[in-house]
């Protein structure tokens, strides 16, 4: 079910302000790609353009193309809703729906769209998704309890289960561990390693060790100064980026000399 993403010369604007400039990148199917870089370098903004979530912010627009297995997300007539059901997203802070039970949170993508689903199918989907997010054993006895009652790490895995349940091709993660404690972070990282068997995973992270641990390839973004657009500086195998980067800026960043 996983698909590759190819981005050609993408510029992202918020109203007049150009936030990201000229990014071209090829993301392989069934791999984990990490975006790293200093705060404000546009990596999260760029991630959001991969499933058109930037359009939620007023004035957000792009130039260029993003191809999902060759289909341009920004071609005329493409419905952002369709794009988002094929490219899921997990956010920085866990955000389960507070009005819904654990079970309903997992089924949210199906139910909110008003699709009919048989109870047996729903049960199967809930179990499969929660197992896929390594959460099943912890919550199987309390599926009807509110999702917001779980711990932070569990909530984040619930959000991943919710994303998996929509059966996307790609999962985008925007700093998924930055609000979590080290043990929960480890659980999510293990999960990411398993997810790449079935999905294309793109993760934005501030934590270079995390990028090194979980990703196959790493993209380093940087910004020339405040008010300037963010740029993709270097994109290569993770091992290469951390041990033998081609650019001086990358080396400075990964060795902790700035940022």
């Amino acid at each position, binding site marked *: 079910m996983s698909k590759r993403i190819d981005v050609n010369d993408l510029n992202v604007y918020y109203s007049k302000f150009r936030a990201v400039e000229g990014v071209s990148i090829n993301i392989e199917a069934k791999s984990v790609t990490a975006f790293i870089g200093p705060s404000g370098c546009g990596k999260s903004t760029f991630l959001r353009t991969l499933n058109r979530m930037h359009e939620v912010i007023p004035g957000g627009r792009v130039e260029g193309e993003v191809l999902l297995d060759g289909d341009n997300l920004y071609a005329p007539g493409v419905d952002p809703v*369709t794009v988002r*059901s094929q490219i899921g997203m997990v956010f920085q802070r866990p955000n389960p729906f507070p009005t819904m039970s654990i079970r309903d949170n997992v089924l949210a993508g199906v139910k909110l769209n008003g699709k009919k689903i048989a109870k047996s199918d729903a049960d199967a989907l809930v179990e499969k998704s929660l197992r896929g997010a390594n959460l099943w054993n912890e919550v199987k006895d309390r599926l009807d309890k509110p999702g917001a009652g779980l711990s932070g790490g569990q909530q984040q895995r619930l959000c991943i289960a919710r994303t998996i349940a929509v059966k996307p091709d790609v999962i985008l993660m925007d700093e998924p561990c930055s609000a979590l404690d080290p043990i929960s972070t480890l659980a999510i990282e293990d999960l990411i390693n398993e997810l790449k068997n079935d999905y294309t995973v793109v993760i934005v992270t501030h934590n270079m060790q995390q990028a090194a641990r979980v990703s196959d390839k790493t993209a380093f973004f940087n910004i020339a100064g405040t008010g300037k657009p963010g740029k993709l500086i270097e994109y290569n195998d993770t091992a290469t980026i951390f041990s033998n980067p081609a650019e001086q800026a990358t080396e400075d960043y990964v060795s902790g000399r700035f940022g």
Partner: protein
Amino acid sequence: MTSTAVKSRAAASGRAGDKIFSGAALGAGVLILITLFAVALFLLIQALPTFSADPAEITGGEGFFAYIFPIIIGTVIAAAIALVIATPIGIGVALFISHFAPRQIAGPLGYVIDLLAAIPSVIYGAWGYMVLAPALVPGYEWLSQNLGFIPIFEGPASQTGKTILTASIVLAVMVLPIITSLSREIFLQTPKLHEEAALALGATRWEMITTAVLPFARPGIISAVMLGLGRALGETMAVALVLSTGGLIPSLIKTGNQTIAAEIALNFPEAFGLRLAELIAAGLVLFLITLVVNMIARAIIARHKEFSGAN
């Protein structure tokens, strides 16, 4: 279940849903705008005969201005006295709840004061008519005997207590919760740092309030008072039931004076033709007065918001 055909069909119907829903939301907003313009327009149309009519046919026989002027003044007097009474008490109550009352009971006490706002105006009117007015008669007697040389306390005092001062006191009770709840909110927003800085310098609680809380809250208090004024100007029942009406007189403790809202309520049920137009014109005047007052209040709040946002 999730074949592409199903997906695209669902997408098509969903898109229409989005359009319908946003259209309905927009329509509701526009409906409000239309309604408000309709308010002004219909009142104007129905009031027009008043302005084209022969002045002699207007109540009082001297034209609309001579008719409306005394009751505008009566309205303003009643509202002004109400504010003079309600403002210091309202601010005091707000301070009590925000800074003096023990933390645990401050919330419930605030709720008790909010109850004042929940009581329907007709019940205040009935209370003013049956309880407050008779209770104030001895006070009015005393005022006319001892302070009768001041025109506003000129005797002989009303024997029923149904005077504009009584009506103003009832109005004061009604606007008190407005002033209190808004001021209380502002007081609670006072930056804790300023308060603690004052206390750390050895200020007493009252000095802390005068140096940190009140300066911060001044615009909020002013707008709260203005909103209270808007309410007092437009309030009908308290005056219609409590005041025994008459011409414009300076004395506050004699039968007399009238307000626009009460004039309409008392006369509308039997009015027709030109009299109806007159009352609607009076309503239009009241609408304009309260509009100006409320707009000033909102402007002060808006400016204050920008100011506190910048901090």
